[in-house]
Structure formats: C-alpha cells, structure tokens
C-alpha cells in the first residue's frame, strides 16, 4: 500500500441501505441478509432443541416460551375479543414478533457494523461491515409488511367472502343501491358516492399500512444503529452503554408493536363489520 493511499481517510458511514458483501451470480449477498440467515439458523436450532421435549411439565426453553405465549394471549384477547380467534392468529403474529425481535437484538451484538472489509469505490476507501441488523434494511421490513398486509387480505377474503370483501374497497353495492332507493330517499344520491370514495380511500390506506409498518421498524432500528455509532464515535468506552440498553428496549417494543399491528390488521380484515 502506497503512502498516499495510506493517508487517505477510510469512509466509515452508516448507509441507509445494506451493502452487498459479495455476489453469488446475480444475487447480491448483503450484510443484512447474512444476519437474517443467522436468525433463521438460530430459530432452526432452537426449534430442533425443542423437538420431542414438549412436556406437560414445562422445563427450560418451553417454560420461557409458554410465558411469552401466555402474555401475548392475554394482550391478543383484548384485541380480538375471543380466545379462539387469538389462537387462530397467534402463530402468524408471533412469527413476526420473534423474527423482528431476534433481528433487532442480533443487530446490537458486538461485531455488527464494526467488523468488515475495506472496498475501494470511486477512488474512495469504503468500509463495508460484514453484518448489519436485518431490520435496519428496508428490504426486510418491506417484505415483512407486505406479507402482513397481503395475508390480512387473504384472511379477510376467507373470512367474509370475496364479494363482500371487494365491496369494502370498490363499493359496487352502494352504487347499485342508488337507482333502487333514489325515489324513496333522494339523499342517497349524495351519500352513496361518498361511501364509494371512502372505499377508494381504503385502498390507499392499505398501501399506507405497508409503508407505515416497514418504515416505522426500519426507521427505529436504523436510527438506533446511527445513534450507537455516533455515541461510540464520541467516546467508545461507557458512553454507548445507556443507549445500548435503550436500543434493547426499543428492539423489544418495536417487535411488539409490529406484531400487534399485524394482529389488528388481521382482526379488522376478518371482522364482519358494517358501517
């Protein structure tokens, strides 16, 4: 390495996106997908360790999981209003919880964002970490939010039928009502077009759901990483500790919020409501 290159500053910035560490063919292996694979592996190992050990008298991991489940069942019951619906939705909702939680917390481990390689790009030396919290990558959160919203629509169609469900968004029923009832109550001429537009607004709100779910999680976790990096830059010893605790709590809270929002979307989509 030449003297001029050695004196050059290594760019050490927190990017909004996850950097590819290497490519497999056309597929970019980013640092965030590596860490999400670690999470998948972790879950697989834990599930493997649970295999055949689920007993009536709980022990170890089963005990902890039961406590988590029981707590969530209580919260979910207050949202769904019935234990039956809670049990229907919880496997899906808790998968979100565990996936998001493990990714959030894994991103706080030492080595994340700090161990990496130096790549020369446009004449600059860029530091690319090998690992990055998976939820600090919009690809992950967008994927999660899309699954959540899509599944909530599928559940809605299954629960109340496709025609009824379609009428929530493209309300043909109210349009059809206009010629039928217009003589009896002329005000319908004014009200039903409004109802139809409300349905169209619902479509936009569904898109907003995806955006709000994905950006909330991404924003919180990414901001946490930036915050920790900044604090470490000021003073690496001791100073980031309180913020680390804060991020642990934020990671948990964001996971809970994500899971509960998914449950609420599912609940609203499957509820046979009448406005």
């Amino acid at each position, binding site marked *: 390495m030449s003297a001029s290159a050695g004196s050059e500053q290594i760019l050490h910035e927190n990017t909004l996106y996850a950097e590819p560490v290497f490519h497999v063919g056309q597929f970019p292996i980013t640092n965030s997908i590596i860490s999400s694979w670690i999470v998948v592996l972790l879950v697989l190992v834990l599930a*493997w360790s649970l295999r055949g050990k689920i007993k009536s008298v709980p022990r170890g991991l089963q005990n902890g999981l039961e406590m988590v489940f029981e707590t969530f069942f209580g919260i979910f019951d207050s949202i769904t209003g019935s234990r039956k619906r809670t049990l229907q939705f919880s496997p899906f909702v808790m998968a979100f919880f*565990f*996936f998001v939680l493990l990714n959030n917390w894994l991103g706080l481990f030492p080595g994340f964002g700090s161990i990496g390689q130096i790549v020369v790009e446009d004449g600059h030396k860029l530091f690319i970490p090998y690992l990055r919290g998976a939820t600090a990558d919009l*690809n992950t959160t967008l994927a999660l939010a899309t699954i959540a919203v899509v599944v909530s629509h599928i559940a809605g169609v299954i629960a109340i039928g496709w025609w009824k469900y379609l009428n929530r968004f493209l309300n043909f029923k109210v349009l059809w009502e206009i010629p039928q009832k217009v003589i009896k109550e002329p005000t319908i001429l004014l009200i039903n077009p409004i109802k139809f537009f409300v349905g169209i607004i619902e479509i936009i709100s569904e898109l907003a759901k995806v955006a709000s779910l994905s950006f909330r999680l991404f924003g919180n976790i990414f901001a946490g990483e930036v915050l920790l990096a900044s604090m470490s830059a000021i003073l690496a010893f001791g100073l980031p500790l309180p913020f680390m605790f804060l991020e642990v709590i934020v990671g948990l809270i964001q996971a809970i919020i994500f899971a509960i929002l998914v449950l609420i979307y599912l609940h609203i989509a499957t509820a046979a409501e009448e406005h």
Partner: protein
Amino acid sequence: MESLVSIFHIDGKLFLAQLINFAIIFFVLYKFAFKPIAKIMQERTTTIEKSLDDAKAVAKKLAETGLEQTRVLNEAKKDALAIVEKANQAAEVNKQKLIEKTKLEVAAIMAGEKVKIAQEKEESLKEMKQEIAGLVILAVGKVIKEKMTDDKDKKLIAEIISR
C-alpha cells in the same frame, strides 16, 4: 418511487429472500414451537380445571358423608334410648308384678298364721280351763272336805269359772 428504490437499494431478489426467511421462521415456529406448546398448554388447562372440579366434588361428597354419618349416629342414639326406655318399663312392670305376688303370698302366710295362733290360743285356754277346774276341785274338795258327786261338782265349777 425510483428514488425510493435507489436510496434504500430495494432489490426484488433480496425482498424475495427475506420473504422466504420469514416463511421458514413461520413454519418452523408453528410446527415445532407454537403448535405443540399451545396444545400442551390447552391440555394442562383442561387437566387443572378437571382436577379442581374433582376436588370440589370430593369435598362436597365428604360433607354429604359427614352429614349422613351424623344423621345415622343420631338415629342410632334415638333407637338406643328407645330400647333402654322400653327395657326400663318392662323391668318396672316385672317388679310391680313380683311385689304384688310377694304381697299376696305374705298375706296368705299371715292369714294362715293367725288362724293357727287363734286355734292354739283356744286350745291352751281350754287346757288351762281344765287344769284350773281340776285345781279348783281339789281346792274346794279340801276346803269343804266333802266330795260331791261328779255331776254336781262339775256344774258347780263351770258356774264358778264362767262367772
């Protein structure tokens, strides 16, 4: 939208990879953790509820048995009292009968004795009368130094005594 994709490096392949990751997590958690644990928890709830119900039933039964026991005991006591009472009464009757009988016997004996005594008294009186008569005859004979005929004598004595 274009800028969104370029700023955040949204990549269809990565997106898909994360979808698959989530799907794996969901299936693994559902199959190996959620389903068996929820089932076990449900079973445990049922078992505990059943045990509590059983315990309640047992307690109720115990209380019922206790009541039954007291009832039977009370009945037995009552019966025993009745039996004792009856026995007492029978004994009383027997006693009375015995006393009556004894009284009658005693009366009979006493009546027999009285008759005997009266007879004895009469006999002794008769004897005494005869002896006295003999003595009087002797004495009178001695006094009047003269023997009277038996008939006269006797008549005279009888007159004297009965006087």
